[in-house]
């Protein structure tokens, strides 16, 4: 009863569309998805129960396991790569360079581009007969090799590279904003302590960018699980199945292979693994927050 009654009602009223969204769209859809994953649905939803058959098949499908594995590789490297490159870019721009805003815009623009054709461009650039490799070879470096997209073991890293190209600008902006917020006196203190610039960034600035980096990581992670366009545009999941990802697996089975039951089972498994990965983090954050509040 903190606030007068009708006022609290105003807050609840304002939140009601969101409640509705969450209950109907998110929770409702999830329940529907879970239910369908126990059926034999093919092209269209049907309520022909199949028990755990779809799950069994799912885990027997090497492609799915590969997709999950790729998601982990891609997710970790992409998020980490974006954070590292974004941080480096921010640090470079933080050094009072000329044309800062031009650089900043250039590093950020990929975030505004859709993947549909930037994937194609990256496919060209990394293609060993078209792109960077023959150009360098033509310039005399005969042994130069850059053929990730066509190489089974390297193709997933090609996807990571294109992802980093797109995402690190956002991290840069977030990190730069964070750096600009750091007390200038810390820089002075570090100079008096005789700490080299790179060391200041590494040991003093970086640890303080925790919240900025966490925000960036959250934004990037939201994209990781949904990664679909990038892979389609760049490799179509190939060579072989080497760049298969869960979202593509779900999409294929739902709309191409008339295998709705399997697709929903995959979605459920994906969702569960996300929850399993995220929950401990959230819980840890919750506990630290509680502890900190308790200490005050």
């Amino acid at each position: 009863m903190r606030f007068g009654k009708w006022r609290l009602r105003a807050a609840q009223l304002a939140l009601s569309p969101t409640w509705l969204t969450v209950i109907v769209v998110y929770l409702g859809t999830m329940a529907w998805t879970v239910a369908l994953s126990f059926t034999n649905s093919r092209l269209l939803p049907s309520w022909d129960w199949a028990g755990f058959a779809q799950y069994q098949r799912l885990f027997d499908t090497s492609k799915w396991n590969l997709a999950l594995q790729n998601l982990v590789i891609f997710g970790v490297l992409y998020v980490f790569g974006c954070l590292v490159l974004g941080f480096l870019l921010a640090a470079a721009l933080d050094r009072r360079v000329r044309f800062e805003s031009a650089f900043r815009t250039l590093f950020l623009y990929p975030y505004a581009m859709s993947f549909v054709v930037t994937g194609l461009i990256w496919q060209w650039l990394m293609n060993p007969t078209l792109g960077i490799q023959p150009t360098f070879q033509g310039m005399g470096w005969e042994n130069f090799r850059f053929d990730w997209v066509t190489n089974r073991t390297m193709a997933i890293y090609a996807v990571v590279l294109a992802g980093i190209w797109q995402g690190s600008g956002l991290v840069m902006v977030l990190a730069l904003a964070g750096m600009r917020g750091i007390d200038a006196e810390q820089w002075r203190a570090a100079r008096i302590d005789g700490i080299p610039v790179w060391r200041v960034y590494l040991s003093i600035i970086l640890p303080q960018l925790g919240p900025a980096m966490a925000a960036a990581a959250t934004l990037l992670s939201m994209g990781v699980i949904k990664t679909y366009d990038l892979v389609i545009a760049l490799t179509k999941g190939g060579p072989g199945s080497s760049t298969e990802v869960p979202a593509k697996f779900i999409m294929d089975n739902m709309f191409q292979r008339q295998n709705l039951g399997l697709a929903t089972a995959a979605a459920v498994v994906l969702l569960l693994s996300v929850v399993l990965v995220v929950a401990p983090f959230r819980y840890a954050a919750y506990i630290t927050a509680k502890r900190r509040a308790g200490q005050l």
Partner: protein
Amino acid sequence: MSPIQSGPAPRKITIGRIGLYLFLISMVAFFALPLFVMLITSLKTDEEIRLARIFALPASLNFSAWATAWSGACAGTICNGVQAGFWNSIQITVPAVAISVMLGALNGYALSFWQPKGGKILFALLMAGALVPYQIFLYPMVRALASVSLYNSLPGIVLVHVLFGLPLVTLLFRNYFITLPVELFKAARIDGAGFWRIFFEIMLPMSVPMVVVAAMLQFTGIWNDFLLGLVFAGPDNLPMTVQLNNIVNTTTGSRAYNVDMAATMLTALVPLSIYFLSGRWFVRGIAAGAVKG
């Protein structure tokens, strides 16, 4: 005693400084290369493209591919290029961005200052929802929208974008509002302002930087969306990306890369120009509080 020096120190060009600029320039190459290749490809003729030299400059500036992409390229029996989609995309994106930003701001405000019952649960569910792949929402959403006759309509696709944009925008605004001093809220309450008044007259004007950030992120996201537009917009409202897909993506038909590239760049033009024009506000907005997690 050291020799007497006076006046300003001699300017030193340090190795670190040179390294810094070398790094920046190599990064410029990395980031600009795709755009460069797209641009020169769009200016090439079919013959030049068949030579498959992606870095070769076009022999002459040939904008015909751009013209074709804009108004001539075919999608099915309709050869209107991406221009029709342009207007559709505007009609979808502008209201969807406006509504989702407003609603997200309202959510953030209600959750942070009023802390109503269940607010934390709502927020947690919303964040969980942000991690779910879109694809599984499609069928049930289609059913639901069809049952209220919003399927295949402009309001329908706008609604879908708003629903899927809510988690991100709410997150941004909640994080921003919790950094604002509560005293502001208290002062307004003493002044007798109610829930809506505080929101519209005090909190919203204060959150302009965050509105910019949220609007830009949402704008890029919605403008570049393909799947939701494809499924929910209906034949009359297909966004530009769907038309782009129809031009670029063919199975048994032939491809014209110059037109593809021109069409892609045309499609990206609006979000790109927004970034180029308001990049400064974007950075400022982020500095204003999106950072604080």
